[in-house]
């Protein structure tokens, strides 16, 4: 194909794409770039925008609330990601055995995923409810505790309580992706090692895991990003409380921008989140790639 024809093709493709590209560009790409820029300004809603370099980041370094928020953000992201991937892998392995009622099981396991994040939070609020919740009800009637525990406003229990709810909601997503990965592993690989008399653990270690590693890497990376950016479920469960203990980075950024009006500072928090995610992902993917090459 000559240069001329290629340019013509590119042009007619662009014409068909424009109705999609224009709105995405105006309402998504441009705001995003502007948002990154606002992170270097002192903008507060209504006032003129003034570039202030890295002043926001210097303020952040001394901001106790920022550090607390990123700390709990890390704890939340790591535990939820690891929990959802491990449990999701277990579930996917069980489902891949295709026992009877398999389609029933796989329909049921999708329920948390199908629920809106806000309702995932509401459901768990009702489980944790001090007076009417099933958790206290069961623990008290089993004699394990003799007093009601207010799970979501106790400094001791709130983080585990929120994390359990988080993992619960994310298991299905991990399981669906991993199941698809498991199903794409050719069956004859297993037959070959079975002839050699390998046991199930060896099979898993030497075939399943290496063959699954690209999908696993994708699931871990995406989950990590999504969990670090969590907002809705925690907002409904605790609004970041008690005492800011569950104020994840997104909750902090939201409050800075839309409760206190420090828009520039909120955007700066967003920028640091991007930086953190990129560094972690880059490091993780490098290790993954090295391993899969060996």
């Amino acid at each position, binding site marked *: 194909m000559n240069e001329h024809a290629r340019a013509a093709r590119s042009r*007619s493709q662009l014409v068909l794409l424009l109705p999609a590209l224009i709105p995405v560009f105006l309402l998504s790409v441009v705001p995003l770039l502007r948002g990154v820029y606002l992170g270097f300004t002192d903008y507060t809603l209504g006032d003129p925008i003034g570039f202030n370099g890295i002043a926001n980041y210097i303020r952040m370094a001394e901001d106790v609330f920022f550090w607390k928020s990123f700390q709990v953000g890390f704890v939340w992201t790591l535990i939820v990601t690891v929990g959802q991937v491990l449990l999701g892998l277990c*579930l996917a392995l069980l489902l891949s055995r295709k026992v009877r009622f398999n389609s029933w*099981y796989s329909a049921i396991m999708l329920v948390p995923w199908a629920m*809106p*994040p806000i309702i995932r939070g509401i459901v768990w609020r*009702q489980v944790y409810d001090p*007076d009417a919740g099933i958790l206290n009800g069961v623990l008290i009637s089993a004699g394990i505790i003799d007093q009601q525990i207010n799970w979501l406003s106790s400094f001791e229990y709130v983080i585990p309580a929120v994390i359990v709810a988080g993992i619960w909601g994310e298991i299905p997503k991990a399981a669906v992706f991993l199941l698809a990965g498991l199903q794409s592993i050719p069956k004859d690989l297993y037959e070959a090692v079975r002839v050699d008399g390998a046991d199930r653990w060896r099979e898993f270690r030497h075939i399943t895991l290496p063959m699954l590693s690209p999908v696993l890497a994708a699931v871990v990376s995406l989950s990590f990003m999504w969990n670090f950016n969590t907002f809705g479920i925690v907002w*409904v469960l605790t609004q970041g409380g008690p005492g800011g203990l569950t104020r994840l980075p997104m909750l902090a950024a939201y409050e800075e921008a839309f409760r206190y009006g420090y828009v520039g500072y909120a955007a700066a928090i967003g920028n640091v989140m991007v930086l953190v995610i990129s560094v972690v992902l880059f490091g993780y993917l490098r290790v993954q790639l090295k391993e899969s090459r060996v």
Partner: protein
Amino acid sequence: MKLHSRLIDAATHAGLLLFALFLVFPLIWMIGTSFKPTTEIYSGVVSVIPEAPSLDHYRTIFQEQSIFTSMLNSFYVGIASTVIAILIALPGSYALARYSTRWNKIILGWVLGSQIFPVILVMIPLYILLRSMMLTDSLLGLTLVYVVWALPFVLWMLQGYVHSIPVEIEEAASIDGASRMQVIFRIVAPLLLPAVGASVLFAFVSAWNEFFFALVLMKDPGLMTVQVELARFTGMEGQARTGPLAAASVLATVPSVILFGFLQKWFSSGLLAGAVKN
């Protein structure tokens, strides 16, 4: 050997049952709560099934109007944004699948790359922009945001399917004198129906479930979406609220779960396989 494999099957069932129980019980508990009279909710008796089932809480919601109105708002925004997104994405996805140029890489790059950025970065400038256009506190404004939110994924989903339609069918149509747009909407679109179905479900469910944009953009109580209204509900403590909240949440879950059930088929089949391979 037979006994051995039976044991493994039994263990698999046990494991799956445990998972199913864990994944479903919070929802079951809430459904139970929604049918219990308030006195029973707070009686301290642990029972999933209500002793004296009642529809009181459901009646309350419909009398209070605010939940009902918010559901209508969500339906409106969900349907409008879905229709617009699909109509816009159809020609675009066709172009992506049939002529492969650098735009394919740019768009895939955007679909994946944009995942890294927290929504707060988009939200702030978007809020300022929409406010200057009087589009905050407006269902139209929210619809536009949801269109843009769903577009990249819908575009990418659809182009995968266009790819699988043989070009010969189109060539035959253009020999018969059909224009490009006619080919897209008369020939390709009908063949794409299953994929369009999947995209419709996807776009609607993501609009129905969305919370953050709606929380920031909608302040007028009469214009809130169902997710924002429910979150507002949880803020109001008090025993009288638990039952109605449960009932409202059950109602708001129904559309997502039903549509998701249909969507699941596509997710577990071709769609995901394609996504992983790419």
